[in-house]
């Protein structure tokens, strides 16, 4: 069978990253007007209202949690980790999308990155916020969470440096700081643009303060470029390290189903898959809602879909290994564990994860599917749900069949488990909607640079 044109032709030839007719001026005007001038659209109010409602659910769930304790969740013995840890891994995994796109593809100088990086990074900031909350509220005594931090104290008590949870604490702290900093630094030139174009006083004040005195001088630009490069160079490995360490949280345990050497890369692949999926889910509606067709083209969507397919293939390999290794090793507890995954109480969840993360994304081999945005959205949604299920299966499914057969039991989530999950989505959406309203969703200066490059004819 001859190769299809899609497989041989480079993406460039099919679709440009900038639609014809888009100029540096038009980009700047359009994007800054979205924030400064345009009336807040109805869809924003509806979305924001729903998000606030979910955030209220979160507040109630946390309030009750703080009053009563983690017993309000379905966690039991031996399944003493439940939704909170699953949610944590899920959120931090999705956060990787932003970092990968803006940092990794910045380093690779991919020109399709510029238009989507801001959306992705903003998503990352609030995903990380949701992720950061989870391990803290998961603690039996969350008010002592800072004991995980190696601060000097009169009792000379240090954290246990051998514990993966301590590594995790450090990793997530570094990641939160890194991604917020990276996002903010990348915003500065655009904030200055907004400051300069703002007509209302509060806008001038707000963006003025946030722009931190950016003048756009060549000195500033030189410093900025260097700082951004360094941050990108830091963030790209950091996104791998954090997911490796999240993987080690599990792999460092003796529990069958967790004690696997493949976990660090497995978690990086999973994170990438969910990250690309969630970026897709945001980019597709936003290019319509914010009228960004000119700068976010089908080319972008296509690239993201291809990345998702790649990550799905990598992850599927891990899924295979996950089943293969216990039999290869021949350890009884591991084999019991795998058999329980495949056919036990949580088997529907297991197979749902396989289908959503491994099977359905194979549709993306077809260009027609990649072009069909509603279908693509559904595939991405499936992946996002599937990745949550994957974490649920890893956490709960592994714990429910452990070495001690007499303690085997199941986990049944309570309404508070679901409320915490839904509430964290509320936190994410609320934050994201706010950013949507007050922050330019496309990096104007990078696009100007890109347009300049393209029109100057020195593009790839």
């Amino acid at each position, binding site marked *: 069978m001859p190769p299809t044109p899609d497989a041989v032709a480079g993406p460039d030839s099919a679709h440009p990253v900038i639609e014809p007719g888009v100029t540096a001026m038009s980009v700047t005007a359009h994007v800054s007007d979205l924030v400064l001038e345009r009336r807040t659209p109805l869809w924003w109010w509806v979305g924001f209202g729903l998000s606030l409602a979910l955030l209220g659910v979160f507040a109630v769930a946390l309030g009750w949690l703080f009053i009563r*304790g983690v*017993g309000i969740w379905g966690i039991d*013995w*031996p399944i003493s980790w439940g939704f909170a840890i699953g949610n944590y891994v899920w959120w931090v995994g999705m956060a990787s999308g932003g970092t990968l796109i803006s940092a990794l593809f910045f380093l690779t100088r991919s020109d399709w990155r510029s238009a989507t990086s801001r959306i992705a990074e903003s998503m990352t900031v609030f995903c990380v916020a949701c992720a950061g909350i989870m391990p803290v509220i998961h*603690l039996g*005594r969350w008010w002592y969470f800072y004991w*995980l931090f190696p601060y000097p104290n009169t009792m000379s008590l240090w954290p246990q440096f051998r*514990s993966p949870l301590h590594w995790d604490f450090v990793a997530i702290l570094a990641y939160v700081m890194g991604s917020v900093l990276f996002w903010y630094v990348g915003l500065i030139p655009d904030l200055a643009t907004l400051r300069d174009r703002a007509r209302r006083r509060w806008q001038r004040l707000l963006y003025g303060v946030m722009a931190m005195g950016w003048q756009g001088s060549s000195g500033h630009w030189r410093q900025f470029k260097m700082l951004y490069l360094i941050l990108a160079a830091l963030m790209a490995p950091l996104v791998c390290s954090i997911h490796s360490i999240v993987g080690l949280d599990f792999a*460092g*345990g003796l529990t069958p189903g967790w004690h696997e050497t493949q976990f660090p890369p497995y978690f990086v692949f999973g994170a990438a898959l969910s990250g690309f999926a969630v970026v897709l889910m945001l980019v597709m509606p936003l290019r319509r809602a914010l009228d960004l067709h000119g700068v976010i083209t089908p080319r972008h969507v296509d690239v993201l879909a291809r990345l998702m397919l790649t990550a799905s293939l990598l992850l599927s390999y891990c899924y295979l290994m996950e089943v293969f290794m216990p039999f290869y090793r021949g350890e009884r507890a591991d084999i019991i564990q795998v058999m329980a995954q495949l056919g036990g109480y949580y088997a529907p969840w297991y197979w749902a994860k396989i289908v959503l993360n491994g099977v359905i994304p194979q549709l993306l081999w077809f260009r027609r599917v990649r072009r069909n945005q509603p279908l693509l959205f559904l595939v991405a949604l499936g992946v996002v749900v599937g990745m949550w299920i994957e974490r649920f299966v890893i956490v709960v499914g592994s714990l429910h069949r452990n070495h001690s057969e007499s303690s085997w039991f199941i986990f049944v989530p309570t309404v508070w488990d679901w409320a915490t999950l839904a509430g964290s989505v509320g936190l994410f959406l609320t934050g994201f909607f706010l950013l949507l309203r007050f922050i330019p969703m496309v990096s104007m200066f990078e696009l100007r640079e890109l347009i300049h490059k393209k029109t100057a004819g020195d593009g790839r």
Partner: protein
Amino acid sequence: MSRRDADDRGGARSAGLARDVAGRLAGKSGRALWRSLDELAGEPRVLEMLRNEFPGLPDLAEARVGRRRILELMGASFALAGLSGCGGGEAPDEAIPYVVAPPGVVPGVARHFATAVTRGGYADGVIVTHQMGRPVQVEGNPEHPASLGALDPIIQASILDLYDPDRSRTVLKAGRIAGADALVKALSDRAAALAARGGEGLRILSGTVTSPTLAGQIGALRQRFPALQWHRWEADGRDTLRAGAMLAFGRPVDSVLHLDQARVILAVESDILDGAPGHLRYARDFARRRRAAEEGDVGGMSRLYAVESVPTLAGARADHRFALRPHEVEAVVRALAATLGAGPAEWRQGAPGRMATAVDAMARDLAANRGAVLVHAGPAQPAATHALVHAINAALGAPGRTVTYIEPVEAEPVDHGESLDRLAADMIGGRVDTLLVLGCNPVFTAPADLDFAAALAAVPVSVHLGTAVDETAMHCTWHVPEAHEFERWGDARAFDGTVTILQPQVKPLWGGWSPHELLAVLGGETRPDGHAIVRAAWARRFDGSGGGTDEADGRRWADAVRSGVVPDSAAAEAAVSVAPGLAGRLPPASVGPEGGAPTALFRPDPWLRDGRYANLGWLQELPRPFTTLTWDNAVLMAPATAARLGLANEDVVAVTAAMTGAAGSVEAPVWTVPGHAEDCITLPFGFGRKVAGRVGRGVGFDAFRLRTSDHPWELPGVELRRTGKIRRLAVTQHHQMIDSPDLVRHATLDEFRRNPTFAKRPEPEQSLYPAYEYPRNAWAMAINLDSCIGCNACTAACQAENNIAVVGKEEVLRNRQMHWIRIDTWYESGTEGGAAGRGEPEQTLFQPMTCMHCENAPCEVVCPVGATMHDTDGLNVMVYNRCVGTRFCSNNCPYKVRRFNYFNYSEDDSRLSLSWNPDVSVRPRGVMEKCTYCIQRIREARIAADRENRPIRDGEVKTACQQACPAEAIVFGDANDPDSAVSRRQASPLDYGVLTELNTRPRTSYQARLRNPNPEIAEGRDDASHS
């Protein structure tokens, strides 16, 4: 204004205030509470105190007081404030404030007092540990023949019972508070009227009484009331044993068993290991004999056969266990008797065909070991079986060797069922006008056909003495709060007749009367003194036994009270022999039920017994053997029976007695028990209390409603109708069919002979980390699976010692029970389609699981804050106040022995705060906890040893589980000392560690279980155990 002026004015003001207070108090002289205050108010030092806000502190303005001095004074005043909180406020006349400590009380140093706990009248000697004058822990009394230092969960829970906040506190008349004076007056008047007509209509109802003093008092009352009748009722009683002895010997006798002398034992649904008087001692004797093989005497191991309908602990430990329908059990006993020459030959045909080989083999084995053979039957077996057991024992030369017959321990033994029947009939017939109910609850426990509540309504004056308001109290005209056994003087006898003098451990917390005092009121005393009554009774007894002088009497009394045992008080041996012609006296052999309707078997719940312990959270939440069920009883049946009836676990069925119209029907959930006889169901009674405290009310279903006086143990032909409802049952172990060959290792004696190290596995490779070094001690524990009888005493003892909270049914349903040591119960399945295919276990195995204190502890490395650490003596310690509650340690523990406080369980627990063990931290919400090897006991021994500048001696530290264990299955000690008991156990060829392949290097090791099957039966086991 000068400083002098200010001082003067201040002084005058406070002096005036003091005068004023004293003056006002002087007017109110009535209340003792105020009296002491009044007296104080006159003393100069008190005036000084009143004058100054900080007594003893120099006036700040004039004195130069250093910071250090201020802190000293503040510290002292805090300490004094604490002390003023001590001492009882309940009895203002006699309370001793601890400002002047009573002699011998040193804060933080425990004191121990002997007494006994009775269960169904029989005493088990205990030692009660006191801290700062309050009892906090119960342990067995090593000098007591029934305890030998061990205890069971019920005895353990007696300390919780003492502090039960739901105990009754006041005398009630028709449900209203009446006061003790009113009772004394009413009872005295009544007694005078009764005495005038010779006591006609006066009845006393009690449970089994072994107390010589109480029996003596009732005897004395008969002089005043010649027509007085004393009835007895014990729902969980031993009538059948008594009747069996009457059949065999023509007179009641008690049996004392010597399991240490028995080579071959046949247990006929026997309760020797789980409830019989003396079961703690029997367990020890049995376990010692079972350890013989491991300790070098391969031939010394005993062999146990069990035939039973309902699984018992003895059955679980049997080398051959046969699950038989009740009539088949009797038939097998008859066939055995016939084979052994103790019955007519035609009985041999009565045994079910599938048992023929087994009966012959058993008979041969029994006959071959003549003189070292013991047959024992449990209280649920009919009198005929008991008589046959006596006959078989006699035929095999058991009396005098493995069984001793003694004069009955119960005072004036009667048939309880008959006694209660007669009482109920008389009550309804109007022949009872005053009834004293002493510490029993017949309205709840009496056979349903008697309708005891209605009968009580016909009695003009009924007085109920009980520690709590229960169903009977609600139907009596008077309720008198009974002093707990730890609050009163008394006496009681053990299974062998040995007397213990009960001494109060604490002044009655809520007031309370002893039965001695109540009877004394009936005898005419108005201010009875329980101590004086018991003391006087014993003065007479000591005299009678040759005491003599007052001094000798005083010494004997003091010794008896101190040691918890009255020397040489065991019952006399009874010279009895089986009267000839037994076969003719026996009722005809029972036949199986007609039709397919199952037979209902009534059995006591192992912990609640007849329901009297229903309000004790420890017992409600303690998993029942086999089912691991908590907070509920269920209709128990074999899996095959459930399948035949189309029932599954947790299906609620309506159980109706088809035969007897009077008895009603109960709705209850189903639970299947492997090893239960087919075609019959067990209804455990003791649950379904309607009037109990906040813990016990409405838990489970009340099986007494189906139990009639004609069918106390077995009710043929019940109907089970599915209601369509589901009732979730809180079990603590959800997987019991064991597939893993490695967790519980076991072998037959032959296999052990051939390969003594069958339990050993190759050692795992060493860790990359350097090994810990233990220059001082290296604590370790050894648990002998061959000794463990699965009685749960260790779990209960651990709960009491370590302040483990009760979490309630909802939390157990979520599998959040907190027990630090659990008894894993395993059914070993046979080949597919064989016994296992029918849900029949090949073998039942118990394995106590608790923290292994791993050398390479997986929990330690994953705790991010270092809340669980290795200590210098090898313990894996848990630092509660460092724990943040990540729960990773629990996930990483391959043994799953860590427990987490999901809620604030200790706070939510209804127990009184003064009942917690002060040596152990009470854990708050959000903290992980687990077995500590009773570190508080190790520390206590360490301090004592350090003061004497010596190492800790072997056996000086006993963990709570070890101390409680009747079978000596658990041994704790220093692995550094090659001669320590634990080192010797761990040197056994049977020693192995669980999950050592994970390189955890556990410090707790197990000794594999051995079975001693009869080679003649072993071949046909699968066919023999069922049809």
